[in-house]
């Protein structure tokens, strides 16, 4: 299958899946089977694109012309392909997990859930393979809209309120700021195609560039840069698989992915480096890293803590992009992958704990680790990866970012990254440790006694939940060893720099 066909297919496969899911809506087993089939085929399709990209090709396909002069087109380049690969791989895992979670938790409206989940994946693929800013914007908006029903899944007042915040901030920033930036870019540059080295160089004054960049960076609300981060904690009312795949991987990564795309292909690293327009945004990102980490420490609700952790981690990537160096961008891009595996593991664990014990607050989890050893072990591994300790994948991306910060001479950023890692330890590790501490007296007293009336009902979550989270935890470790490969794969996106230097 040629990659040109594979790209639209990647968008289409989940949509076909939606139809299948809807057709099988009255038979849950068949319906879930459809989801699985779709997920596997999607991953296969995405995999088929990799060889061409590794070979240095940039397969492009124009689907249609949207406005005169503006095409709706898809293309594959390393950044997007990586993103698509991660998202589609983790969808398989998440689908397995969802089956366990949704049934174990007796959720309503499961057909709607699976259907919109598949739509969300389709739009994520679209974001990943967009060839120009208009296409990307379109899929970006579609992603927001189709994840809304997932956030408000519960249908409670709280869920509706959260849904309003979610939609309000995401659409507010994208329509209010990003769209303006896109149109302005179109006017200034006369094109919106993602081009190596950017399209804005030499076409506008430094001031305009700075304003545009700010519009983009704040307009990409999905990157959750403060002060537009409120939607992410709000979205935590969604069922955990949603939080896991969408709000740790697909949606938020679509945000930072867009930031990277804009940085690399719209502005160009050189342009940002010479105008210095991005420096203050880098400081904003640094501030977000620290503040979000501090807020995370105060949260007792596990999912809320993870959400703030995500906000903080996302800003790593934004920071990487805003430092306007090759290392920063590549580090950011790698962090997309690393953080995805780490954070999804953590969310899976949170969901497993919820299904098994109906507990959401960290303070109640004392002693649970002994009853759910796999879950908590996986949590521990995931946490290590987020913190950035070897032998976890997260260590490499953080290393790259620190390197980039040191390169640019912004020692402040080095310090911020270091402090943040410490804070990560402070808010993640205690969760795992608490789980292995003896349960409090009123919860049973006898650690070995599975037959006590109080804690007796709690045991490991269903296998459908546990297997996926073990898998992703192992993934964190695997990534540590394959980071070189990822680095080599992503390196060409900064070709703009080398290209500029060598004159090519």
């Amino acid at each position, binding site marked *: 299958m040629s990659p040109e066909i594979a790209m639209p297919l990647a968008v289409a496969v989940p949509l076909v899946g939606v139809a299948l899911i809807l057709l099988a809506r009255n038979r849950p087993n068949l319906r879930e089977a459809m989801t699985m089939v779709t997920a596997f085929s999607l991953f296969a399709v995405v995999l088929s694109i990799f060889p061409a990209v590794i070979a240095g090709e940039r397969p492009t396909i124009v689907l249609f012309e949207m*406005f*005169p002069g503006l095409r709706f087109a898809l293309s594959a380049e390393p950044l997007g392909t990586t993103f698509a690969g991660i998202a589609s791989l983790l969808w398989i895992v998440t689908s397995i997990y969802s089956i366990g979670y949704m049934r174990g938790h007796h959720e309503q409206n499961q057909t709607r859930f699976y259907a919109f989940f598949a739509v969300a994946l389709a739009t994520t693929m679209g974001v990943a393979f967009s060839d120009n800013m208009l296409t990307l914007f379109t899929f970006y908006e*579609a992603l927001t809209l189709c994840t809304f029903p997932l956030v408000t899944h519960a249908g409670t007042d709280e869920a509706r309120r959260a*849904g309003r915040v979610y939609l309000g901030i995401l*659409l507010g920033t994208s*329509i209010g700021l990003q*769209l303006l930036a896109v149109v302005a870019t179109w006017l200034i540059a006369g094109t919106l195609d993602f081009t190596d080295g950017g399209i804005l160089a030499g076409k506008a004054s430094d001031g305009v560039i700075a304003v545009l960049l700010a519009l983009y960076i704040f307009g990409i609300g999905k990157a959750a840069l403060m002060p537009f981060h409120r939607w992410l904690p709000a979205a935590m009312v969604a069922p955990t698989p949603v939080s896991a795949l969408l709000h740790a991987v697909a949606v938020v990564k679509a945000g930072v992915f867009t930031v990277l795309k804009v940085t690399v292909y719209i502005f160009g690293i050189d342009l940002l480096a010479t105008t210095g327009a991005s420096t203050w945004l880098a400081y904003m990102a640094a501030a977000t890293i620290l503040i979000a980490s501090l807020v995370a420490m105060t949260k007792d609700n596990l999912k809320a803590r993870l959400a703030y952790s995500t906000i903080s981690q996302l800003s790593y990537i934004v920071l990487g992009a805003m430092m306007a160096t090759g290392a920063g961008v590549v580090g950011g891009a790698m962090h997309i992958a690393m953080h995805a595996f780490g954070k999804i593991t953590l969310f899976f664990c949170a969901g497993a704990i919820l299904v098994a014990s109906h507990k959401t607050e960290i303070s109640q989890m004392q002693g649970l680790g002994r009853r759910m050893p796999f879950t908590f072990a996986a949590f521990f591994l995931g946490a290590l990866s987020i913190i950035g300790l070897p032998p976890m994948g997260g260590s490499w991306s953080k290393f790259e970012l620190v390197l980039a910060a040191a390169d640019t001479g912004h020692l402040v950023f080095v310090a911020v990254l270091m402090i943040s890692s410490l804070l990560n330890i402070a808010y993640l590790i205690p969760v795992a440790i608490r789980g292995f501490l003896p349960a409090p007296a009123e919860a049973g007293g006898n650690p070995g006694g599975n037959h006590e009336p109080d804690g007796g009902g709690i045991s490991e979550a269903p296998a459908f939940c546990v297997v996926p989270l073990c898998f992703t935890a192992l993934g964190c470790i695997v990534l540590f060893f394959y980071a070189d490969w990822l680095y080599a794969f992503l390196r060409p996106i900064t070709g703009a720099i080398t290209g500029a230097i060598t004159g090519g």
Partner: protein
Amino acid sequence: MILLHLPALQVVVPLMAAPACVLLRHGRIAWALALVVTWTAFAVALALLLQVIDSGPISYAMGGWAPPWGIEYRVDTLAAFILVIVTSIGALVVPFARASVEREVASDRIYLFYTMYLLCLSGLLGITITGDAFNLFVFLEISSLSSYVLISLGRDRRALTAAFRYLILGTIGATFYIIGVGMIYMVTGTLNIADLASKLPAMADSRTVHMALAFLTVGISLKLALFPLHLWLPNAYAFAPTAVTVFLAATATKVAVYVMIRIVYTVFGGPAIFEQMPIDEMLMGLGMLSMIGASLVAIFQDNVKRLLAYSSLSQIGYMVLGLSLANVSGLAGGIVHIFNHAMMKAALFMAVGCIFYRVGSVHIDALAGLGRRMPLTMAGFVIGGLSLIGAPLTVGFVSKWYLIQGALERGLWPVALVILASGLLALIYVWRIVEVAYFRPSPDGATEIREAPLSMLIPLGVLCVACIYFGIDATATMDLATAAAVELIGSHP
């Protein structure tokens, strides 16, 4: 032979069908006649559009008297485009109306309803196609009088006062219009629009001409319900029978916008007159006020029809803003928004009509749980709503894109921000409804509510598909709108 006379047939066919309806005196037969006639009109409009694209503007001399002595029919790109919009909506509303009107209008009035409907349609077509300033007034009155009657057919007694208020304000607007026409006639001696356009620039600094423009603008602003002259619109839309609301919301104000464009650009020469009189700035300000103010009011409405009526006001603001930008992108954006808004608003009001047909109420609380009970209708509503917000891949996005582009080309960043902010306000009021429909359980005892009849769903479906199709592939509509804008402004960018 018939191809040569299409401009005349465009208006005359529906006009002749109206008395025929009276003679027939039977609801269903009148409906069938209306159906045939509106679809014919649509075909005629399409043929005209193709002719215009092919061979440039068409001029047709009524009675064989050459303009400016006789009345001229003139079809340029813009007029042909508007004709297609009006007739397509007109053609789609008729199938929709059958069930809806039988529910909302007494059975022995139905044939009169279609008489009025056809008259209103021919009035609007006449306004669009005519090349004579006074003839425009005559057809304006045909469409206005028939729409007063159509509105008063609503079941709520407030429909009567709404129609009365519209009658008073509409007549004032029309009178202002003829005062303006009188003034320009006085200084030029002609009523033909093309002739006026060639004579007026020479006397652009005359005080009479300035005041004429002012009176024309105010008069038309009344008809198109530009803030603060909008008072008649919300109640009129809210209490008219749904089919009427669909039709008027999608066409009547659009035609008024068209007249505004005609007057400002064709008759007074567009950008040139703005240097004499700050009409553009005035319109821009009022347009933005409408966009924001009406959206804010819409957020607090509990009657869904009224909410959509206020939303129409704000959308009219977009169009006026587009024409006030006075550059090709902005004007093209405004023109294409006429088309786009016609489709989305028709879809939205049709969806509301379906709901009213089954539920018997348009209060927001009555929509609870409808997402499940009337999935297709609500899906249509969501698509229309997304277009209103301006989500990508819907038509709303296209027009917004060009309006923003037009504003940015002029360097008016704040205007662009206002456009965006208005879209966000639309998000709030649309989402209020979506939330109720999908995430609030339906009240007990509402189990018998079913999906609306197919005859209502199909037109709705067609409009929704159009909303998306022209959102995905906007090249055709944008090419037309741009061509029209270039014709109006001249080639300078």
